[in-house]
């Protein structure tokens, strides 16, 4: 079948045309979506490692997977941009941290693991939630504080959770999710699940002490914890070289192995996560540093241009954008035409708009919801909050 070696450099890629065969190479989109013929490509950059072996640069994929990646990333991109305009029209309030530019990390990770593996991240969680199986309706309802949201409207942008597919949030205080993630890994080891936990944090949170504490404990107890630093080079407004004496976050584990990955290349991410999962199940914790970039500011209240130049942002968008990379690969392998990809993007836009419209109709939470879920009604006792009035505890 059509195999091609693709070494993609910055912009003008010397794409090798696939070897011709008698088969027609121009496939229609619908056929490509089911086509699982293997294609071999190389990641954009080789991996760099610390105290461990490097995974191979060569990745196997298929037209089906390429189309899926494109579709999912386009959806995520569209969702974040829609969230941007919803915020500006004051339907989303508070803090809204957008993930556009970093989609490859979420998608690549999902492709390498199962829903039984756990992911936990900080507040930039909209796309990770979507990747874990959340629906657009749940995302937008939660962002607008409606009942239909994944946390019933009580969590907000920073508190997305999906227990049934192993997505543990969604945390406002950065750094705190890493010990939680190591706890998830501990539970996985305790129950002998043969699954792993990916605990994501940013370059800003990488300087938190509890990370190193948790890493120490995970290494001592051999926990299947994978710490992923999504290094988008800015901790809110502080560049990484101003916050960390040693910005080589993958090396900071010292005795824990680390891998530096091009976070804008979804295949590199997928390969690294696969490698890390195998490693963690055998040898304990490992650190992955994803070199990625966010186009928006830290959050919606940050223009994102006071601490970096617009040229830098547009430069990255031109040269390293994850969706563009997939688009070029799709064209290089003649999997779909430009029009077909544009149609997909339009379809994603429509899906997002429909979800927003539906979410706008979802009602606000009932006032009685203020007091639900404070305590679990377990142990058979009714709990009314700290000041129980004269009603006696009701036991079963």
């Amino acid at each position, binding site marked *: 079948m059509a195999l091609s070696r693709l070494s993609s450099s910055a912009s003008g890629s010397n794409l090798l045309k696939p070897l011709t065969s008698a088969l027609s190479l121009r496939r229609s989109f619908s056929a490509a979506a089911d086509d699982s013929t293997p294609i071999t490509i190389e990641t954009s950059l080789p991996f760099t490692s610390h105290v461990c072996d490097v995974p191979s640069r060569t990745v196997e994929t298929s037209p089906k997977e390429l189309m899926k990646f494109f579709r999912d990333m386009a959806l995520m991109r569209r969702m974040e941009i829609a969230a941007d305009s919803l915020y500006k029209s004051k339907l989303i309030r508070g803090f809204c941290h957008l993930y556009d530019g970093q989609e490859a990390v979420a998608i690549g990770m999902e492709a390498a693991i199962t829903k039984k593996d756990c992911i936990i991240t900080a507040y930039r969680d909209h796309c990770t939630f979507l990747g874990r199986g959340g629906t657009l309706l749940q995302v937008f309802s939660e962002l607008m504080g409606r009942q239909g949201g994944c946390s019933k409207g009580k969590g907000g942008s920073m508190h997305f959770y999906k227990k049934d597919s192993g997505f543990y949030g969604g945390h406002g205080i950065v750094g*705190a999710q890493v010990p*939680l993630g190591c*706890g998830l890994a501990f539970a996985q080891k305790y129950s002998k699940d043969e699954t792993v936990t990916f605990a994501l944090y940013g370059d800003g949170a990488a300087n938190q002490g509890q990370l190193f*504490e948790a890493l120490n404990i995970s290494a001592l107890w051999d926990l299947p914890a994978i710490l992923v630093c999504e290094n988008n080079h800015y901790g809110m407004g502080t560049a990484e070289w101003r916050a960390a004496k040693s910005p080589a976050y993958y090396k900071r584990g010292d005795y824990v192995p680390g891998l530096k990955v091009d976070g804008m290349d979804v295949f590199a991410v997928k390969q690294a996560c696969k490698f890390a999962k195998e490693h963690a199940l055998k040898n304990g914790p490992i650190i992955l540093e994803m070199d990625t970039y966010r186009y928006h500011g830290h959050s919606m209240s940050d223009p994102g241009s006071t601490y970096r130049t617009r040229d830098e942002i547009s430069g990255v968008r031109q040269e390293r954008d994850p969706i563009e990379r997939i688009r070029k690969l799709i064209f290089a392998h003649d999997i779909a035409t430009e029009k077909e990809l544009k149609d997909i993007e339009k379809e994603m836009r429509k899906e997002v708009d429909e979800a927003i419209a539906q979410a706008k109709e979802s009602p606000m939470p009932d006032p009685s919801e203020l007091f639900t879920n404070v305590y679990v009604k377990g142990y058979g006792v009714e709990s009314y909050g700290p000041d129980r009035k004269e009603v006696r*505890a009701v036991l079963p």
Partner: protein
Amino acid sequence: MATVFGATSAAISVSSSSSRKLHLPSRRSLPGRKASFLVVRSDAGANPNAGPRRAGQLITNAVATKADAAAASAPSKPGHELLLFEALREGLEEEMARDPTVCVMGEDVGHYGGSYKVTKGLADKYGDLRVLDTPIAENSFTGMGIGAAMTGLRPIIEGMNMGFLLLAFNQISNNCGMLHYTSGGQFKIPVVIRGPGGVGRQLGAEHSQRLESYFQSIPGIQMVACSTPYNAKGLMKAAIRSDNPVILFEHVLLYNLKERIPDEEYVCSLEEAEMVRPGEHVTILTYSRMRYHVMQAAKTLVNKGYDPEVIDIRSLKPFDLHTIGNSVKKTHRVLIVEECMRTGGIGASLTAAITENFHDYLDAPIVCLSSQDVPTPYAATLEEVTVVQPAQIVTAVEELCQ
């Protein structure tokens, strides 16, 4: 007549009028959390005979001597005698045997046996994966315990001293307390955070902290304080079985308290207060070590002709306003004796709660005796004055009852 909160259909027999407990069939481990056990409340108020009997069993000073205990338990009752830390260990062991998801993590809980011997022997029995020695990293191992609880394990996190838990305050407040709410009910955090606190014997300022006040405004957690071997074991078991995060406050000086506890399995209710001594003239609300100071003062007060009603509130969050309210309606005077700090302490909250709910029943303003708002000094004389002493309690009651 013992008051029993019946659970399921298990045939319950009330043995005699003076027994305040029931004999349960011994339990094997159950898959679900069905409440087929009995929660026994010492509702001594309902049984006038139980009052004096209970008072006879009273341990009136903080560290019981052997002679006292032997005299108190002279009439042979079924049960076995043990010290408070052994009672905690028994409760812990029973729950670990019953439920394989229960695990303990803390500093020196495993091979060392626990700094106060509460977990002695458990590591040999259950192995390193269930009794985990952690490095000195409270913030992260508390976080790890909470993360493990999110998946369904039931970890018990031991702080070697409650003061060390300040390092983990972010995890306790933000993640432990709030996750059930912010996830819309998806996750429950059945974690128990326990450890000794309170003023000991000249341990110094940083190891003699009374931190109940810091945790009390965290939504989503429950706080209990144990004071006798009986309620220590019962509360430990209840806390482990509870699906909510529970902070169990123990006291350094109470670990060697000796009492006879029943052989049968029992669980205390997490939200209920304990009636220690029913009375008529004044309600004294207390918890943890101050209970013993209060009982010592009670002896003096009885000699002087007063009849104090002493309630060990046990549940620091939420308050058992039902029991407290009934008592206030009876006596119309309230004295709160606590070891917590004066400013923003448990007593302060309790005063506000009682005033809000039972203002019409009060004949006098609520008096709250708490520790002084100072770091605990090292010198013995100064340390003694930092906490409330029985003499002060007697004076306060006399003033209140004028």
